[in-house]
């Protein structure tokens, strides 16, 4: 067994332990948080008798260890249970919501990586120049403007005033690439600004460090073109920290699209979990958080493995 395979297996085993701990933590946290799904289902003006009847129906009167045992057993079998509100399998709910979230997150990641890395490289190449100073201003704006402010501004300009793009909603990719893309432009722009700024700052710093190395001067002395210097020599050596922040950004993005989904009325996984938390829909909260934890773990693993491709000196 190669060292790499052994490393991956070890990481996967530790991921299972991490997710088990996450599972226990989530279960206890939401059960210990005050709130009763039965009372919410029954409605604000329902009598105590009606609430008690709904609670009995949902099995919420069972002791906590019994509930945990049932949940853990079912989860290990791949059965995430049934939403206490929708009465539908949680897997079905997540499948419906995963496409919009992944669409926004992946498109945002693409824009952020292309925009951020390009911006960072150009700023580093002409450090102190116009592009570099523009990056400083852009970074300050990107970090400080909340996504809902940017979102409302974009909606006002591009949807209400000029009617160029839709205000809100999501069209599945199966219903046409054009409408799908049109509905994603504004959310993607709003969400990607801080990530472009973040990745660009890191890319600039890494590139600056590499560009001052002796071998870069050697390359210049040998008459290497700017393109070759930047992309063949510098970027490859500055890649590890950039890949790290890209991985981190994507992980944050999956969990952090809630606000974007809210502002642009996108029925994604973020809204699903927020609604579930408000309703104390325990099976949905538990399952979504477990899945998101799993995605985090896998992204971290992918980033670690990417290091070996960028830098052949790295071995596991």
């Amino acid at each position: 067994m190669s060292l790499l395979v052994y490393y991956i297996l070890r990481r996967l085993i530790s991921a299972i332990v991490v997710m088990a701990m996450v599972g226990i933590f989530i279960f206890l946290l939401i059960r210990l948080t005050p709130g009763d799904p039965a009372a919410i289902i029954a409605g604000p003006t329902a009598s105590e008798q009606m609430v008690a009847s709904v609670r009995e129906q949902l099995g919420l009167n069972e002791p906590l260890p019994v509930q945990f045992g049932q949940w853990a057993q079912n989860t290990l079998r791949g059965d995430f249970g049934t939403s206490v509100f929708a009465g539908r399998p949680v897997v079905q709910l997540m499948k419906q919501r995963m496409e919009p979230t992944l669409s926004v997150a992946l498109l945002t990641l693409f824009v952020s990586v292309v925009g951020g890395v390009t911006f960072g490289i150009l700023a580093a190449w002409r450090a102190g120049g116009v592009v570099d100073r523009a990056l400083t201003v852009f970074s300050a704006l990107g970090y400080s403007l909340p996504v809902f402010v940017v979102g409302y501004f974009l909606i006002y300009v591009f949807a209400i005033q000029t009617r160029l793009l839709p205000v809100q909603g999501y069209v599945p990719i199966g219903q046409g690439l054009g409408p799908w893309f049109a509905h994603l432009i504004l959310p993607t722009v709003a969400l990607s600004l801080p990530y472009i700024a973040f990745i660009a700052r890191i890319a600039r710093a890494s590139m600056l460090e590499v560009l001052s190395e002796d071998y870069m001067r050697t390359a210049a002395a040998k008459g290497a073109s700017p393109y070759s210097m930047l992309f063949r020599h510098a970027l490859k050596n500055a890649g590890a920290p950039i890949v790290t922040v890209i991985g981190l950004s994507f992980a944050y993005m999956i969990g952090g699209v809630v606000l974007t989904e809210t502002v642009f009325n996108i029925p994604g996984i973020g809204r699903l979990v927020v609604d579930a938390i408000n309703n104390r829909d325990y099976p949905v909260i538990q399952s979504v958080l477990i899945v998101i934890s799993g995605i985090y773990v896998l992204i971290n693993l992918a980033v670690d493995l990417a290091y070996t491709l960028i830098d052949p000196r790295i071995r596991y």
Partner: protein
Amino acid sequence: MKWSHGVPQAFDPYTTTDVDIGDYAFGVYDMLFGLDSKLVPQPQMIGDWSASDDKRTYTFQLRDGLSWHDHTKVTAADCVASIRRWFQTPGGSLVQQRAQDVSIKDDKTFVITLKEPLGLLIDQLAQVSTYPLFIMREKDADRPPSEAVTTHIGSGPFKFNEELFVPGANITFDKFEEYVPRSEAPDGLAGGKIARVNRVIWNDFPDQQTAVSALQAGEIDFLGAPPADLYPVIESDPNLVLEDLYKSGYNYFLRMNCLQKPFNNVKARQAMLHLINQEAFLRIINPSPQYSRPVKSLFGTGTAYTNEANTDWYKEGGDAEAAKRLFAEAGYAGEKVVILDPTDWGEAHNASLLLASEMRKIGINAELASTDWAGLVTRRAKRVSVDEGGWSIFISSATDFQFGDPTTAAWMAMNGEESWFGWPESAEYEALRAKWPDVETLEERQALAREMQQVWWNYASLISLGQVISPVAHRKDLTGLVGLKTGNVPMWNMQKG
């Protein structure tokens, strides 16, 4: 046709009082009787009906042309099963107590036999204030209400589109082509329910600012409850209309825990009547004066039973000195008063903040227990003292319409341990309330309402904070909307262009 509308995840109208589920049920299911705009019950699924001379036997015959969305015929057996299911909910409990039998006579005819006459029988079959009688297929209605119906097969003018449903995000309703509307003109929940559009889509907007933007851009046609701070934006748009469709509103109120100090003392509760200045609370619940008004009567502002009995003594409220004096007379000694504060419900949260501030000003040791609504509904069920995790006050609301029926509005009972949260107890009031179903004429019931109110405000378990009217916003080319005082908007009759 697209609406901004709450999208429920569970739908059985026999398991919840949720207003969104009511809107769904009005479209998908039909009712035996429907209340017209004057709240008078009119036959809807019923063709003919008659009562025996002793008023103990009612015979109902279904009108022609009724069918389910699965294309089978609606029968008397479906109605009987639905009535029996309804009996198990608070909405049907009154009729259930009086009913001796509900039986099928033939395919289209069924009979309700009563142990003793019930003057309100038809009103109860038509009531929509809590758990209305929606008619379901027999195989669905045979389930107890504790077991939710998960199919969406009704006999109403709109069909639920299962394929396009995204729980919590959007619902699509399609016109039910086989629906045969009554010939009378639409009037509230009565008359012809004519679906004039082929499809209605509800989108659940988590952000109301975005919903208003979508309305401006023409992406949606209707917005049920726009936020008050955006009224000027809507009013200034020539393509939009802000309309008081419901001709009613939501009554906000605070409920006190009558089992625990200090509100187990009537003087402390009466002190709150003196303290609360509804105008002040209304200004922070809804800043638009034209869309709010004070509520003086237990029976709301616009029901047939609204009256002024026993309201003079506390005048308009806002009398801090009188409140302070009564708290002193109640022997208040600095006990902690816990106000449950739902931070995820803006209006109630703001009102809770003001309430705490007003109480502190007169020396009450008021403490806000911040939580979300889900946490609040759990804690309000606790009857223990505040030191053991109980509560003193919480704020809630209900439609003005619901205050017109003390037999179904849970918070209008004062039957102690059996009562709604707060558990007030007054045998005198309950004796009067028990007479309600048997009173024959409107005038007699209005007189009874005045008597009940006399006792109610002396006991003071619930204090009104005022009524907020929620106008709807829609595109100018959307016409024919039917507004109900229940706060519901049915999908029939409306059209574009």
